């Protein structure tokens, strides 16, 4: 079977710096894969390559077997690959609910269909679906608030809900637990469990090792742009190269 996403020998250079160095891996539908590595390892750059923000300097990206490395971010999103941002990027003039309503148009018919007032039955269905997503991330009571007025943890959850509202088949989460307190992290973990139960495919970048080890079925380790290990959480925990990379980073 063709994997949902496959990277073949993907590199990205910024001037003299090789931020991502000949990385190859694939993700099957339904997997929750962790991507870990010290700061500056190239995780966000890798996300930006998959999401179409950067063209790879070398290598190939395949989505369900189709080459996608030439597509722009909007096309990637329309193909069903959604992402969140490490530095939260919400729309400052939109309410919480409106974030999901705009994202729902992702797989729709485009601006002209949205102009047509006759297609209004769809609006009610969309609102219902959006409210269900807000329930999933625990924001249903704040749907009418301007999103950037939410507390930090709620903003992170809204970013995830917005990505989910595009009906993705692959979700890229960039450090969703960053800046969350312990209760919020538990909430996030429960949410990831719920998403996994709903068979979403997720690639998760995260520094919180406890979280990654708990929710991921497989873990990829990046260091200086290179993939140095890949395997089940139990294998990764005892992998000497990984231990070395982390000890090296902390020392």
């Amino acid at each position, binding site marked *: 079977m063709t994997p949902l996403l496959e990277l073949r020998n993907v590199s990205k250079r910024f001037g003299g710096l090789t931020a991502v160095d000949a990385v190859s891996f694939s993700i099957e539908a339904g997997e929750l894969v962790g991507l870990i590595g010290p700061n500056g390892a190239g995780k966000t750059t890798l996300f930006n390559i998959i*999401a179409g*923000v950067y063209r790879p300097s070398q290598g190939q990206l395949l989505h369900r077997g189709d080459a996608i490395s030439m597509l*722009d*971010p*909007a*096309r990637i*999103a*329309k193909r069903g690959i*959604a*992402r969140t*941002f490490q530095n939260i*990027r*919400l*729309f*400052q*003039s*939109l309410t919480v609910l*409106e974030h999901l*309503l*705009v*994202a729902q*148009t*992702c*797989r729709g018919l*485009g*601006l002209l269909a*949205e*102009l047509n*007032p006759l297609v209004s039955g769809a*609006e009610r269905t969309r609102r219902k679906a959006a409210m269900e997503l807000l329930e999933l991330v625990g924001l249903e009571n704040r749907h009418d608030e301007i999103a950037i007025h939410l507390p930090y943890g709620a903003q992170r959850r809204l970013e995830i809900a*917005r*990505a989910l*509202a*595009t009906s993705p088949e692959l979700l890229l989460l960039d450090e969703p637990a960053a800046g969350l307190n312990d209760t919020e992290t538990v909430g996030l973990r429960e949410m990831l469990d719920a998403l996994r139960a709903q068979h979403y495919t997720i690639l998760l970048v995260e520094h919180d090792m406890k979280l990654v080890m708990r929710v991921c079925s497989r873990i990829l380790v990046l260091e200086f742009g290179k993939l140095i290990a890949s395997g089940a959480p139990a294998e990764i925990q005892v992998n000497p190269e990984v231990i070395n990379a982390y000890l090296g980073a902390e020392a």
Partner: protein
Amino acid sequence: MNIYYEGVLASTGINILLALSAYTILATNRLSLGNAGFMAIGAYVSSYLTVNVGWPLFPSIAVAGAAPALIALAIGRPVLRLQGIYFVMVTLAFGEVTRTFFQNFEPTGGAYGMRGMSGVTIEMIYAFVAAFVLLYVAFDRSRAARLTYTLRDDDEAARSIGIDVVAVRLIAFAWGALVAGIAGALFAHYALYIESGNFNFLISASAVLFVILGGVQTFWGAIIGAVVLTLLPEALRFLDAWRLSAYGAILVAMMVLRPEGILTRTLLRRLRRLSPR
């Protein structure tokens, strides 16, 4: 009606259209200082059609909207890639190039300008204003309006949810050009005489000023800004020589007291809640 008041009312109507034109482009996070260029194209194209070709008024006005819109579509892709001050400079240059073109273009009178246009009454100007306001109300209620808000806020986030920011921005740019072109046609056929100097940089700048002072968050802000700023200098006539100083002082005071403009989305929501349904 008194000819003086009618003239003020007419320029208020034209300015509302110019403010809507500037608003539409500004709403996609691009500040154009070249809308007088689109207005000039609309004015000269329609005047040429009615005076030199002998076309009836309404088809000429329609072409006056279409011509600048097509030009905007043609130049939009590379130009809209620019942001901030670079976009401002390029549109400013476009406006000035257009103005000097008409200053030298003999078929439309060159430096002598054009005359012989007629047929637009004050009622007709306001019929057009009403029609466009209705269009903006309808658009504002459509689901597409929400999509355009994302462009004002964050391109990268908008792209990440599948919004083709280049296409949406191009359509908005062309629509803004269309509205300015129609304003130009109405102006030409109401004023009866045009010259290239009518479409100078100050026209573009004041259109943007209407929007900024009225409020950039909703198109009602643009309309209010156009009305207030067109009527204000007239209301200050009793000050004689101090009129322009007072006008300037009031603008500064408004900007300091309410930098977000007269009308905001929050204020609009509050007003809606107050009004009984």
